[in-house]
């Protein structure tokens, strides 16, 4: 689905990256733990998160995520939005919570990313 549809389905406000809303995403990852995001094995996914820190955007950038959707009505500070804009990472923000947001997107066809399984790690 296009980011435009992601925004419509979740009634999200587009904080930055309005010109990138035609970008296609077919996978999503819902996480507040950055190490969970860092173990995603695919690219071009939608990161659904409650984190509004600069680090969340930087993780999305390093992981080649397609966009970040912030849940539960949180709003990042202006420098975070500015950084996302410069990095070419669209930032969306919805009032809905994580569970509802992910459920809505799943029901419209967005599928989960694969993670590296914990059992794959040494230990």
């Amino acid at each position, binding site marked *: 689905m296009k980011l435009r549809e992601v925004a419509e389905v979740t009634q999200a406000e587009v904080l930055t990256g309005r010109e990138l809303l035609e970008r296609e995403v077919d996978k999503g990852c819902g996480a*507040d*733990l*950055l*190490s*969970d995001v*860092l*173990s995603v094995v695919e*690219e071009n996914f939608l990161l659904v998160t409650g*984190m509004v*820190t*600069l*680090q*969340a*955007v*930087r*993780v999305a*950038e*390093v*992981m*080649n995520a397609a966009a970040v959707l912030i849940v539960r009505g949180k709003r990042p500070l202006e420098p975070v939005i500015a950084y996302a804009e410069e*990095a070419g990472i669209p930032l969306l923000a919805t009032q809905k919570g994580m569970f509802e947001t992910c459920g809505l997107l799943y029901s419209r066809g967005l599928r989960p990313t694969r993670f*590296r399984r*914990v059992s*794959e*790690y*040494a*230990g």
Partner: protein
Amino acid sequence: MSPGAIADVGAVSTQIRRILRELGVEPEVVRRVGIICFEGETNIAIFTKGGRITLMVWDDRVELFFADNGPGIEDLELVRRPGYSTAPDWARELGFGAGMGIPNMEKNADTFVLRSRPGKGTAIRATVWRKGNERQGSSAGPGA
């Protein structure tokens, strides 16, 4: 990195990502190096008062060196165990400290060497091969 650098976490990774892309390094290598660097700089920011990250780009490989004068790692086997973490609450509240850092660095590197001395510091060398991408094994042992 400098003291109290938690707000800057990810700054080195994203900068390195840009450098590697400009050099035309393979996207898969860029991504793996980015992940390794992100985990490494997070550890330096959480556990130490500063450290040094060195990037070396070769025709056949990319290497990352991490060095700090932090508290060191008491138990090298434990830190390689997924989920083991000694991160403080403030780091966890920021989404860090899930105990996957070292395991994720190791998993994304072809060779991974970790040396640490409690009270002295930690040094890590992580190598990602640009051709073949064959895992060369890893080692984690007491500091020399």
